[in-house]
């Protein structure tokens, strides 16, 4: 298919078919989530569910993919769905404007192949990991010039290491920069694609990204 011509030979025709059969749930549709959603749709994921209860605000314009002066005040997931279907109207995009909590996380992720955490707080991340979902969770977070990236599944819980008892981190002071958000989002997508293509990307620990030293360090944690 001409749409995916430039994915080859890194993604073969049979692998492209695998991606087309994939269903990915993206939790959060802000800075990380918007970029992740666009990249997944462009690379050929067949079905995408976007979950976020928020609307676009002016302070989102510095980094969030689908925020524009015209979309301020509109639901993030609805705007994202419209834009994603403009990119690929053959994809199935489901938008759910709901707040994620322990009571709905199983229903929201039922039947999917993969969950991507694009959230902005520790509390919801804990809920997602503690839900013991039967699928792999790819997770990342950012603050200033830094971010972390990890993969979690039953028996390999890694998100817990990164969650503070307070709900927010140093991004409260350092902010969320566009390039940091987009790099971490694309790293999540790269792990998502490799996972959907059957590669084992699991680890015990996390990757830490420093955009001042241009390094990605693998941090292994012994339990």
């Amino acid at each position, binding site marked *: 298919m001409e749409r995916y011509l430039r994915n080859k030979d890194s993604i073969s025709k049979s692998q492209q078919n695998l991606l087309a059969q994939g269903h990915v749930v993206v939790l*959060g549709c*802000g*800075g*990380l*989530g918007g970029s992740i959603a666009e990249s997944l749709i462009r690379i050929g994921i067949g079905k995408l569910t976007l979950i976020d209860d928020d609307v676009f605000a002016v302070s989102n314009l510095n980094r969030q993919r689908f925020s524009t002066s015209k979309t301020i005040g509109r639901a993030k997931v609805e705007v994202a769905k419209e834009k994603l279907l403009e990119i690929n109207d053959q994809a199935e995009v489901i938008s759910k404007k709901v707040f994620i909590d322990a009571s709905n996380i199983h229903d929201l992720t039922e039947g999917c192949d993969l969950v991507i955490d*694009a*959230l*902005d*707080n*520790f509390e919801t*991340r804990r809920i997602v990991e503690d839900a013991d979902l039967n699928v792999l969770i790819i997770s*990342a*977070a*950012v*603050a*200033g*010039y*830094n*971010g*972390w990236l990890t993969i979690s599944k039953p028996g390999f819980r890694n998100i817990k*290491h*990164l*969650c*503070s008892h*307070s*709900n*927010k*981190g*140093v*991004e409260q002071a*350092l*902010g*969320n920069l566009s390039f940091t*958000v987009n790099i971490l989002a694309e790293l999540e997508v790269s792990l998502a694609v490799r996972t959907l293509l059957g590669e084992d990307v699991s680890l015990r*620990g996390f990757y*830490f990204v*420093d955009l*001042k*030293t241009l390094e990605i360090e693998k*941090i*292994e*944690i*012994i*339990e």
Partner: protein
Amino acid sequence: MVEVRLFAYFRDNRGKILYLDPNLFPTVQIILDHLGIKLSDVQILLVNGRHSHAQHLLKENDIVALFPPVAGG
């Protein structure tokens, strides 16, 4: 020497990796005091890859890693 690996903004004006004498800096808390980092600002404190605490007694060749909390999206 104890190898102290700093991450994120902890590196600002301190560097990325420091080597400190465990006889002069016998605990993680003393290292934090030396660096001017509050324990409450540290989310992950690893000694040789395992979660640890500020009073951990350090020995030669130990590796300490310190990370702040990062949650943004």
